[in-house]
C-alpha cells in the first residue's frame, strides 16, 4: 500500500511537471491544474511518510538497474519518511499559495514553466530523500540543482536576477562537485555505491570522503562561509520558490549530511567539533547580518543561514556527545536538530509566503518603505506575526520547542564531559543563547518596520489584503507552527521519544495565557480611565509624520554599535581640484558601504585566480587552423614516443 501511494505521488508530481509544458497556452486553468496535481501528490506523499514514521517498518523498492553497478533504487526508512513529510507539508501549502500568486506575476506563458519546474523541483527533492544508493542520490541531487536554477532565473531579464542566477549556478555546481568527490572516495573505499556502513575502509578515505561531502552539503545549505548565494538567490526568485528553497531544499542538504553520518561513516570527535564550529559561526554571523539587512527577503535568507547553523549545531553536538559516550543526550541533540529542521521549514515558508504577499501589495522589498500594513493587511499581518514569534523561539510556538531540546542537550552535557570539551561546548552554548536573543530582536524589527507605525510610502499606504487562496497556504503553516509548539511533548512521545527533562509546553502555554489575562486584568482595573490618542512610537506628539517615526535602522542602531567590528564599512572618497595644491574643490564622489567581507576577501580572489587560469587555457584555442594542425602533429609525435617507450 505504501509503495503504491508513493508511486502515485511521483506520478502526480510528474503530471504537474508535464501538463503546463505540454499545454503551452497562457491560461489560468492549466496552471491551476498543475498546482492541483502538486497538492494532491503532496497529500499522497504525506500518508506513507506518516505511516513509516509511526513505525510501519522500512519500505524497500525493487531497484531498477539498467547497467549492472549503475542502479536506481529507493528506500523509505524513518529518517527518509521524516524528511518526506516535511517536503509534503511545505509543498502542499506553497502550491496552494502559488495558485493565486503566479497569476499576479508578469511573464505570460512563462508562468507555465514556473509551475512545471516547481513540480519537477519538488519531485527531484522527494527522489533525493528516497534514494537508496549514492548513484541515484547524486543523479536526483543534480536534477534538483538544475530545476531550482531555472526557478531562480524566472525573471531572467532583470540584471539582478541573472547575476543571482549565475552566482547560484556556480555555487550549486561547486556543491555537486564536492558531493561527487565524496561519493567517488566512498566508492574507492568500499567498492560499492550502496549506502551501507563502511566496514574496513582506510581511515584517510573515510575522512576525505566526509570532508568532501560536508563541504558539498555545507555549500548547498548555506553554511558560512559558503552562504553567499542565499541572500542573492532568495530575493531574486518568486516568493513561493524562495519558500521552497529555503524551507525544503536546504533541509535536503541537511538530510544528505545526516544520512551519510548515520548510515555510512563512524564519526570521530573532531568531525562533530568541526560541524559544531561551522554551525555556531553560521548561526551567530547569520543573525548579525540579518539584523543589518533591510531587504525583507534577504533578511529572511540570512535568517535561514542562522537556522541552518542551529541545525548543524545539533548535528555536531550529536556526534560530540555520541563519541563522548552519552547516547541519550546525543539522541536529544539529534532530535532537536531534526525537530528544528521541520519547524524551520514550517515557519520559514510561512514567513517567505507572507513576505511575498507584502511585496506583492507594496511593490518593494525595502522594509524602510513599508509600515502601517497591519491595518491594511490584518490577516497577513497576523500570519507573519505567528511566523516571527515562532522563529524568535518564543513559547509556546514550535521554534521554542526545538531550540529547547538543543538547550537541554547542551545544559545536561556541559557538566559531564571532560574539561576541554566542556569549555568548547560552553562557548558554543553561549553563542547559541546570543543567537536566540538576536533573532528575536531581528524579527521584532522586521514585524515592527513592515506592519506597525505609519506607511512610509504611497504604495504601502494603498496596500490591500491579498485573496483568500494566498492566505490559506500560510494559514495552514501557521496552524502547524502553533500545534507543533503546544503539543511538542505529545508529538515526540507519539514518535517514540520520551524526554523526561522536557516540560509539557501545553501547560506552559496555559500558564502564559493565564498570566496574560491576569496582566491585562490588572492593567484594565488599575489604570486611570482617561484615554489619550497618539501615533505609535510617536513619543506622545499630536502631529506625526511617517518620517519622524522610529525606523528599522533606528531600532537596530544599538546593535549596530555593539557589533561594529563585524559591520566594517568601506569609505571611498575621490575628489578633483582646480589647482595643484588641492585647495579649490572642483568635483568628487564619495561612498560609504558595508564591507562584503566574504565576497571581497574569499570569493573574488578565488574567482580571479580561476579567471586567470581560464584566460591562459583560452589562448590554446586561437581560431587558427595552423595551430590546431600543430596540436595534432604534436599529439601524433607524443603517441609515437609513447609507443616506442612502451614497446
Amino acid at each position: 500500500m505504501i509503495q503504491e501511494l508513493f508511486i502515485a505521488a511521483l506520478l502526480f508530481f510528474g503530471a504537474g511537471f508535464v501538463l503546463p509544458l505540454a499545454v503551452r497556452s497562457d491560461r489560468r486553468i492549466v496552471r491551476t491544474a498543475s498546482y492541483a496535481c502538486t497538492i494532491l501528490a503532496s497529500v499522497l506523499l504525506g500518508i506513507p511518510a506518516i505511516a513509516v514514521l509511526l513505525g510501519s517498518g522500512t519500505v524497500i523498492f525493487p531497484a531498477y538497474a539498467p547497467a549492472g553497478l549503475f542502479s536506481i533504487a529507493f528506500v523509505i526508512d524513518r529518517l527518509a519518511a521524516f524528511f518526506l513529510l516535511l517536503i509534503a507539508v511545505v509543498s502542499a501549502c506553497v502550491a496552494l499559495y502559488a495558485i493565486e500568486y503566479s497569476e499576479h506575476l508578469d511573464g505570460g506563458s512563462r508562468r507555465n514553466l514556473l509551475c512545471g519546474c516547481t513540480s519537477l523541483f519538488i519531485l527531484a527533492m522527494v527522489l533525493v530523500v528516497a534514494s537508496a544508493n549514492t548513484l541515484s542520490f547524486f543523479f536526483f541531487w543534480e536534477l534538483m540543482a538544475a530545476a531550482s536554477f531555472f526557478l531562480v532565473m524566472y525573471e531572467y531579464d532583470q540584471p539582478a536576477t541573472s547575476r543571482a542566477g549565475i552566482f547560484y549556478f556556480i555555487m550549486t555546481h561547486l556543491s555537486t562537485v564536492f558531493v561527487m568527490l565524496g561519493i567517488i572516495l566512498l566508492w574507492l573505499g568500499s567498492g560499492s555505491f550502496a549506502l551501507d556502513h563502511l566496514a574496513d575502509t582506510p581511515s584517510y578515505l573515510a575522512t576525505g570522503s566526509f570532508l568532501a561531502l560536508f563541504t558539498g552539503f555545507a555549500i548547498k545549505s548555506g553554511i558560512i562561509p559558503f552562504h553567499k548565494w542565499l541572500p542573492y538567490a532568495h530575493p531574486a526568485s518568486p516568493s513561493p520558490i524562495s519558500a521552497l528553497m529555503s524551507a525544503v531544499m536546504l533541509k535536503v542538504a541537511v538530510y544528505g549530511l545526516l544520512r551519510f553520518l548515520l548510515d555510512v561513516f563512524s564519526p570521530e570527535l573532531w568531525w562533530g567539533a568541526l560541524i559544531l564550529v561551522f554551525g555556531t559561526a553560521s548561526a551567530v554571523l547569520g543573525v548579525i547580518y540579518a539584523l543589518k539587512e533591510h531587504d525583507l527577503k534577504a533578511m529572511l535568507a540570512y535568517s535561514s543561514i542562522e537556522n541552518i547553523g542551529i541545525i548543524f549545531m545539533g548535528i555536531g553536538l550529536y556526534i560530540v556527545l555520541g563519541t563522548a559516550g552519552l547516547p541519550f543526550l546525543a539522541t536529544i541533540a539529534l532530535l532537536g536538530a531534526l525537530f528544528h529542521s521541520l519547524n524551520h521549514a514550517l515557519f520559514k515558508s510561512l514567513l517567505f509566503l507572507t513576505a511575498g504577499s507584502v511585496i506583492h501589495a507594496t511593490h518593494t522589498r525595502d522594509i524602510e518603505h513599508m509600515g502601517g500594513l497591519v491595518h491594511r493587511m490584518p490577516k497577513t499581518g497576523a500570519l507573519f506575526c505567528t511566523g516571527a514569534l515562532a522563529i524568535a523561539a518564543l513559547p509556546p510556538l514550535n521554534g521554542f520547542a526545538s531550540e529547547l531540546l538543543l538547550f537541554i542537550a547542551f545544559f545536561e552535557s556541559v557538566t559531564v564531559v571532560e574539561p576541554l570539551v566542556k569549555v568548547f561546548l560552553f562557548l558554543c552554548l553561549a553563542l547559541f543563547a546570543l543567537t536566540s536573543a538576536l533573532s528575536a530582536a531581528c524579527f521584532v524589527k522586521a514585524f515592527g518596520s513592515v506592519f506597525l507605525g505609519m506607511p512610509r510610502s504611497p504604495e504601502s499606504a494603498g496596500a490591500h489584503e491579498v485573496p483568500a487562496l494566498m492566505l490559506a497556504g500560510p494559514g495552514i503553516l501557521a496552524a502547524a507552527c502553533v500545534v507543533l509548539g503546544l503539543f511538542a511533548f505529545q508529538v515526540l512521545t507519539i514518535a517514540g521519544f520520551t524526554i523526561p527533562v522536557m516540560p509539557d509546553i501545553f501547560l506552559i502555554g496555559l500558564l502564559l495565557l493565564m498570566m496574560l489575562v491576569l496582566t491585562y486584568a490588572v492593567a484594565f482595573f488599575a489604570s486611570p480611565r482617561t484615554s489619550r490618542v497618539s501615533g505609535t512610537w510617536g513619543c506622545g506628539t499630536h502631529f506625526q509624520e511617517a518620517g519622524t517615526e522610529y525606523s528599522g535602522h533606528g531600532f537596530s542602531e544599538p546593535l549596530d554599535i555593539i557589533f561594529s567590528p563585524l559591520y566594517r564599512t568601506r569609505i571611498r572618497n575621490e575628489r578633483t581640484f582646480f589647482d595643484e595644491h588641492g585647495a579649490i574643490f572642483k568635483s568628487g564622489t564619495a561612498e560609504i558601504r558595508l564591507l562584503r567581507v566574504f565576497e571581497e576577501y574569499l570569493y573574488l580572489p578565488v574567482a580571479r585566480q580561476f579567471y586567470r587560469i581560464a584566460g591562459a587555457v583560452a589562448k590554446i584555442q586561437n581560431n587558427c587552423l595552423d595551430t590546431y594542425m600543430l596540436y595534432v602533429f604534436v599529439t601524433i609525435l607524443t603517441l609515437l614516443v609513447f609507443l616506442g617507450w612502451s614497446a
Partner: protein
Amino acid sequence: MIESAFVAGLVRVLFVCIIITAVYIISARNLLSIVSVYAVQSLTLVVIALLLYLLEGAPVLIAIAAITFASKVLIIPYFIATIQEKIRIKRDIQFHFLSPTSSLFVSMGLMLLVYIVLERVMAATGDRDNLFFFGAVLGISLMLMGMMVTFSRKRALTKILGFLSMENGVLLFGLFVTELPFIIEFLIVIDLIILVLLTTILTVGLDSTLEDYHKRLHRFHLWEDEVEVR
C-alpha cells in the same frame, strides 16, 4: 625474370628519391616547382608499386599503380598547374611556426624518431623483412612531413600539397605494411575528397591565405548564409 635482390636495390634507390622530393616540398618557395615535385613523388610511388608487383605478384598492386598514376601524376598536378598559370602569385614565402631550414632539421629528427620507435615495435613482434621495415619508416615519416607542411605554410595551395604528400605517405605505408584491398578503397575515397576540395578551392581561393579565403567567398557571394544587402 629479374632477380629479386636487384629489384630490392631499385626500391631502396626510389626510397632515396622519395626523401629528396619530400625535402623539396618542405623547403621550396616556388609554387610551380612544388607541384612538379609532387608529381615526381607520386610517379616514384607508382614505380615502387610496380616493382613490388614483380617481387610479390599481387595483381592489386597494378591497380594501385594505375589509380595513383592517373590521379596523382596526371589529373591533380594538371588541375593545379592550369590554375597557377592564371594567378599572379608564384612564390610562397609566408611561414607559421617553422621556417624551411628548421623544418628540415625537424624532419631529420622525425625520421630518426620514427626509425627508433618502429625498430623497438618490430623487435617486439619478431624479425621482419628489412625492405618492408624501411618502407614503413618512410611512409610514416612522409606522412608527418606532409603534416608539417600543412601547418607551417600559409598559402592554401601549399597546404593542399602538404596534405597530398601526407596521403602519399599513407599509401607508401600501406604498400609495405597493411592489408591492401581495404587500403585501395580508402585511398580512392580520400582522392575523391581531395578532388572535390581542389575544384571548389581552385575557382577562387588558391592564391590566398586561408584567412583571406573566407572574405573572398563573401565578396564573390559564394557563401550561403550571407544576407544580401541592397
